[in-house]
């Protein structure tokens, strides 16, 4: 525990204030939703400012605010830089967003694309990958809420985790994607302002030369550019980030929801804006030893250092920033995964003739189900945030090549795409357990690429893309 904490009264007051604010706003925005398209895709007409802020806010999450300091604490300079390279996922998705909108102007989910382009077998594998990833991310977000609260206040891990899950489920339930995007805009402003202030205050109180001197003496390996585990982590994180964004319905639903011509610019700008954030949040972890901060779990290092440097006010600021970052990601993930379950499972296979009211009801039911499942999975704190997140890297990195070759190529068949995901995921998981969490994504991506090449070379097809109807 940190020496400087938020008092119980203050912690409860902040939680209540934010909970009421986000839920009330979600309810207000939800009144405009008239049909399933409004609820799931915000009317498909989101403009540049909202589009950019939602893309950025969703990508600033527990990963950025808690895991970036953890990785800096464990891998030093490479951890910090490697984490900021996750922005490449957003930047490289920019042309894909344009292509997705061109090919599937009426599409709803990433599952639609895989089903249409590769068929049922690849779609089934893709759905398994998507759910494993979505649940891993959701659980890590819930855990991050608990870690944050228990690090900065007398409240327990279970209380923090429960509050973040209940608040996000409530306002997403009430407002759909429209509420998610609007709250993301406000949360982006809070995150950017808060992170800049924390970095400024940290540098003022603990100047760079002093940090460098302390790290050189106590943890020189953190400045070592040939630190082996960190070298392996660098590209692993890049492919993890690219895999997360290329396959996840969180980003595909945004590509569908943004107005025509907006997606490419928005993803490009949000990626460039996001890139410095992990460097800022990671940097403060380098001060931990010199400040005498020794967190019981490495994922608590960021909040604890900020609280130590800035005192009680700093602890409150960190609390607000991380709470906003968590909410901005969890709401998006809940909405996108519920869409995927509603449209790809319920509508495709159970109730093809479902009315718009039935779809909206089912979407809300899926949201509740996901929230409940996330809460149950978060209760036993199974791993550190970094380790849990990188576990999902084995799954998502296997989808990169099937997505690219599906969107831009016509030679890869459904069996090739499915096996690329299966072989990639299996090899990634083997490396995760046998070598370390920082090799899961890179090995998965490599095996997936080789499988795609084999099928493109020896079992090529000539797929004719036809625009999705209806």
């Amino acid at each position: 525990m940190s020496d400087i904490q938020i008092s119980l009264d203050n912690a409860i007051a902040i939680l209540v204030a934010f909970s009421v604010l986000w839920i009330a706003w979600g309810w207000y925005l939800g009144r405009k939703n008239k049909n399933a398209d409004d609820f799931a895709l915000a009317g498909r007409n989101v403009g540049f400012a909202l589009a950019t802020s939602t893309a950025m806010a969703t990508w600033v999450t527990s990963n950025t605010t808690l895991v970036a300091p953890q990785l800096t604490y464990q891998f030093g300079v490479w951890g910090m830089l490697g984490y900021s390279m996750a922005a490449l996922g957003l930047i490289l998705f920019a042309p894909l967003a344009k292509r997705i909108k061109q090919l599937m102007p009426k599409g709803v989910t990433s599952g639609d694309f895989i089903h249409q382009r590769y068929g049922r077998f690849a779609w089934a594998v893709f759905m398994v990958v998507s759910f494993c990833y979505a649940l891993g991310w959701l659980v890590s977000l819930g855990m991050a809420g608990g870690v944050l609260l228990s690090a900065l206040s007398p409240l327990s891990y279970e209380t923090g985790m429960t509050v973040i899950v209940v608040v996000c489920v409530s306002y997403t339930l009430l407002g759909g994607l429209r509420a998610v995007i609007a709250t993301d805009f406000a949360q982006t402003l809070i995150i950017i302002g808060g992170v800049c202030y924390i970095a400024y205050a940290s540098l003022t109180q603990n100047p760079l030369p002093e940090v460098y001197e302390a790290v050189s003496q106590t943890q020189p390996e953190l400045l070592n550019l040939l630190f082996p585990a960190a070298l392996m982590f660098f590209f692993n994180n890049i492919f993890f980030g690219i895999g997360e964004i290329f396959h996840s319905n969180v980003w595909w639903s945004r590509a569908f929801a943004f107005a025509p011509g907006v997606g490419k610019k928005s993803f490009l700008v949000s990626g460039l804006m996001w890139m410095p954030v992990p460097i800022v949040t990671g940097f403060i972890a380098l001060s931990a030893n010199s400040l005498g901060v020794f967190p019981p779990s490495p994922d608590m290092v960021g909040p604890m250092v900020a609280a130590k440097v800035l005192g009680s006010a700093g602890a409150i600021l960190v609390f607000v920033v991380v709470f906003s970052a968590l909410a901005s990601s969890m709401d998006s993930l809940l909405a996108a995964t519920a869409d995927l379950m509603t449209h790809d499972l319920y509508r495709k296979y159970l109730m093809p003739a479902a009315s718009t009211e039935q779809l909206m009801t089912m979407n809300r039911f899926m949201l509740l189900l996901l929230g409940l499942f996330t809460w149950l999975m978060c209760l036993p704190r199974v791993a550190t945030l970094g380790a849990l997140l990188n576990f999902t890297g084995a799954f998502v990195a296997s989808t990169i090549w099937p997505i690219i070759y599906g969107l831009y190529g016509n030679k890869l068949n459904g069996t090739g795409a499915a096996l690329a995901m299966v072989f990639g995921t299996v090899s990634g998981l083997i490396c995760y357990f046998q070598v370390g969490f920082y090799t899961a994504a890179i090995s998965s991506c490599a095996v997936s690429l080789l499988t795609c090449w084999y099928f493109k070379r020896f079992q090529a097809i000539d797929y004719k893309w036809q625009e999705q109807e209806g």
Partner: protein
Amino acid sequence: MSFSGLSTGQYNIKFFANSQDNHFVLKSLEVNHYSIATALKVFLLGLAMFGILIGVLYGRVNKTNKEAHDVRHSNQFR
């Protein structure tokens, strides 16, 4: 008082220790060792794959844009 940390060089050491009443108890210790040669091979694999990714994306995006442009151009003269 509880604390955890990392140690030096090519060893990635994670430990979780507890100190109370002048007694120091090491509660868990995890040591991984990778040679710099292995790490550089993984790094180079990542670099090569990233180069392929950029090359494939750049080539295919340009090709698609050109095709779309050609279609628009031909439609203008119909």
